[in-house]
């Protein structure tokens, strides 16, 4: 078996584009997912069950079915509802909906972690429900749920690879097509694994640092 790394340097432009697209998908998908998760958690906790029940079902569905099947439903099933999405849009939407379900559970746990007494006290003082969420609950719970949010964000970066199956031109897809045209599977795929691995290690380390920093702030305010 010959090993020819030149295949990677020859195609550096496409590979770089693939990497950038992967990061873009990850950032946009995660950001939208966080918004979805927060909205779902708020609706579940603060409105009546007619609004909450469908969302509980949505969360259970997204958590109980494979991400790949969800992408297929959105991308191939979309036209049924008149949604002719490009692979990229379908993929980012899928990632956001999938991540949103997990994020909503994290936010829910966060809202419940703030002591009821504080909310009662704020209500007694005539602060509106939304203001309580913004000024009392969110600042405290974000610190508590930060590790869980970071964890899920890191997990989502790995899920972006699945988008290659619905022909999104992200890193995995680019590398695979280089591999199948040059038959240099070992070089391309091992490189691919190394890139993801390094990326994950960096992101995880950054998340730990952030947690530590925020944790330090917690200790200071408590002491």
């Amino acid at each position: 078996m010959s090993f020819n790394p030149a295949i990677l340097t020859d195609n550096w432009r496409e590979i770089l584009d693939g990497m950038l697209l992967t990061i873009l998908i990850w950032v946009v998908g995660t950001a939208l997912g966080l918004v979805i998760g927060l909205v779902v958690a708020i609706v579940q906790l603060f409105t009546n069950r007619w609004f909450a029940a469908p969302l509980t079902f949505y969360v259970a569905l997204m958590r109980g079915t494979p991400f790949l099947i969800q992408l297929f439903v959105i991308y191939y099933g979309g036209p049924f509802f008149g949604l002719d999405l490009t692979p990229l849009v379908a993929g980012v939407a899928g990632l956001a909906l999938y991540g949103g379900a997990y994020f909503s559970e994290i936010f829910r746990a966060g809202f419940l972690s703030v002591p009821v007494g504080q909310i009662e006290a704020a209500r007694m003082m005539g602060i509106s429900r939304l203001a309580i969420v913004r000024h009392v609950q969110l600042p405290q719970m974000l610190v508590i749920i930060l590790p869980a949010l970071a964890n899920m964000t890191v997990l989502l970066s790995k899920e972006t690879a699945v988008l290659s199956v619905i022909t999104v031109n992200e890193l995995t897809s680019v590398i695979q097509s280089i591999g199948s045209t040059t038959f240099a599977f070992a070089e391309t795929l091992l490189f691919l694994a190394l890139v993801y691995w390094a990326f994950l290690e960096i992101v995880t380390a950054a998340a730990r640092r952030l947690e530590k920093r925020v944790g330090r702030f917690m200790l200071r305010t408590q002491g």
Partner: protein
Amino acid sequence: MFNTAIIVKSLPMLLEASVWTVVYSLTSVAIGFCIGTLMCAAGLSQSRPMRALAAFYVSFFRGVPLLVQLLISYYCLPLIGVNVPSSVAAVGTLALCTGAYIAEILRGGFLGIPAGLIEAARMVGLNRVQILTRIEVPMAVRFTLPSLVNETTMMVKASSLISVVGVLELTRLAQNIATSTFQPLEIYLTAGAIYFLINGAITLAGDFAESRFRVEKAR
């Protein structure tokens, strides 16, 4: 028009394929559990090389997307002269991947076992392997049962990715039917519902096992 006839027609085939999904995912969890136990023991051992090996294993298999791992095993194993059926390679990869997660899960369980218990076991003359299989693993499993059940449902979902390397299971068959009938929405929703039910059954079984094997937290 939502075509219910196509669902009724393809349901028997999809259910048959879902048996493979269950077989592949449960097999890989079973193998992954053995790998995970060994790697967890290695990670907690006194030997520095063993700890380094465990750390490397867990970091790699958790740090690389499963799809990429599957592609490597599918394309690169033949290059080094390993010619196994794609289903075997895929299950092996799933097992290695879940093993890394199970090692991390069990770690918490192992650390929760009181040191006195291990010392007592050593006193009555159990050897290292006996202590592992008869004392540590059963206790660690009881401590971490909810996480292990969750990991099993994750693997049922993750097994859908082996369709990409050409292994016939629920997702692959759904793809085949969807492309030949041009009714992707109906077929994929049905496949999704089957996955949902499989995971629901596993969660129920997990709840049952939890209530059956409930342990008081060790003091």
